[in-house]
């Protein structure tokens, strides 16, 4: 593996973040703060503790996960879509680099941005609620694995999309609803039994649950199920990307 091309892609993508700091970092932090104000303070004051955790603190892992998923997908999809859109993808495809190096460069940068953002949101939440992280290593593991997996998904979306509208399609119509309905703001135990069963078909439930467990030691599903789900997702994304590069789907005629 040649590190220079990976470094070139990674640094160029991180430089894009620095150029668009307001959009990349400040905007998600403000959105999250608003969630805390609305859900944590206004609505949360009317909700009693959930499994011994105050509502404001309960939603912290869900909020971080919401931002992590949407930002990972959006960063990675835009990263690979923009060269396609501008035509400068010719340089990537004609360079003496392997598909793995391309993926590591783009996905690594997108995941790094999301992880930094996740940590900033975590720090921001400290201003609103008392923070407690029961299993910090697991917390970081979930953070990193989720960022990588959804950056891979974003990379796939960026290659698939042939216009800016499609780029927004999956984050807006799939990721955000699944996250909202995946227990970010509530415990699935609060749902009627039928909807509890239906909710288990939502993969985001497993991510939020596992991540919340790393904070407070409480979860809707077992830790093993959460880890298995994220690894399944990871393998699925890697297999899809492997297929894309093998066939040249939407990259090479």
């Amino acid at each position, binding site marked *: 593996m*040649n590190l*220079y*091309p990976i*470094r*070139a*892609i990674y*640094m*160029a993508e991180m*430089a*894009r973040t620095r*150029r668009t700091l307001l959009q990349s970092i400040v905007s998600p932090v403000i959105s999250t703060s608003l969630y805390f104000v609305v859900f944590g303070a206004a609505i949360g004051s009317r909700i009693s503790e959930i499994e011994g955790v105050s509502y404001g603190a309960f939603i912290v892992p869900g909020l971080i996960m919401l931002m992590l998923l949407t930002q990972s997908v959006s960063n990675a999809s835009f990263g690979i879509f*923009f*060269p396609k859109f*501008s*035509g*400068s993808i*010719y*340089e*990537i*495809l*004609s*360079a*003496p*680099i*392997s598909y793995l190096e391309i993926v590591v460069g783009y996905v690594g940068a997108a995941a790094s941005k999301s992880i930094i953002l996740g940590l900033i949101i975590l720090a921001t939440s400290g201003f609103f609620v008392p923070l407690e992280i029961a299993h910090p290593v697991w917390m970081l593991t979930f953070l990193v694995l989720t960022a990588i997996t959804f950056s891979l998904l974003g990379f796939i979306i960026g290659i698939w999309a042939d216009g800016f509208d499609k780029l927004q399609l999956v984050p807006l119509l799939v990721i955000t609803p699944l996250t909202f309905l995946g227990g970010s703001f509530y415990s699935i135990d609060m749902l009627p039994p039928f909807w509890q069963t239906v909710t288990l078909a939502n993969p985001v439930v497993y991510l939020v649950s596992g991540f919340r467990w790393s904070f407070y030691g409480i979860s809707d599903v077992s830790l093993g199920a959460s880890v298995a789900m994220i690894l399944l997702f990871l393998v699925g994304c890697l297999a899809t990307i492997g297929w894309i590069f093998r066939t*040249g789907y939407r990259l*090479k*005629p």
Partner: protein
Amino acid sequence: MNDPIITINGLNKTYEGGFQALSRVDLTIQRGEIFALLGPNGAGKTTLISVVCGLATPTDGHVTVDGFDSVTHYRQARERIGLVPQELTNEAFETVWNTVSFSRGLFGKPPNPGHIEKVLKSLALWDKRNNRLMTLSGGMKRRVLIAKALSHEPRILFLDEPTAGVDVELRRDMWEVVRGLRDNGVTIILTTHYIEEAEEMADRIGVINRGEIVLVEGKAALMKKLGSKQLTLQLHEPLTELPPALALDTLGLTADGYELVYTYDGHQEEEGHGISALLALLEQEGISFKDLHTRQSSLEDIFVDLVKERS
């Protein structure tokens, strides 16, 4: 000279819709030459370049770059190639320096500010190194593309329509840059619509039409082989018609009767039917002339004839 740097064997490319862009292309590019690939729109020039550079997948056939197969040894093959695409494709918000340095890293080379500086200076981009690409003129953007292609010190440079949309002065500057590269041992393959460009620059010329290589020839040999000349004689007295002794297929009389136009090539002179024979006939018929001039057909004439012939 027989030192091939690119060898293309039996290359076919059929797109998904069934359009065959390349058909059984066999072509050899010699090390250190400037090779011009000519062809009308849609002839397959860009597709051929795309396949060699890894931007398109061949349906079948093989490409070898400096001895390395472009598919099985793509790293070694591609690191030898620099590509300047036809479209002005740039990251608008990047600076000249950053985008050229990015290209070097992308091609697996360690940072070398000295080399980037040399490339930018050679292309008169040094003063613009901190400018964002969006602020540059079209000609400057094209230079940036050349700088990006040269950033990793390639041995082969593909220039796909390098001077399209560039003004005459800049075009001449670019020709100088390309000649300088060739002098430094870089092999240049250029596609162009400007026949004048190929005539000015190329050592050898290939003509592609409908995905097939129609001919490959040294420029001088091509001009000699397929080019024709015209001799125009301005007469003292007009003729109403050509005398029977001058009734040749190759000789014409203008409508006003004041000019005789003789079309010939090298073969006729060798066979004894050339200019000397014509002048002797004129003297014999008592036809005198006050002036004469000759014109040699350009590469453009040859190209148009070739493409028309094959259509």
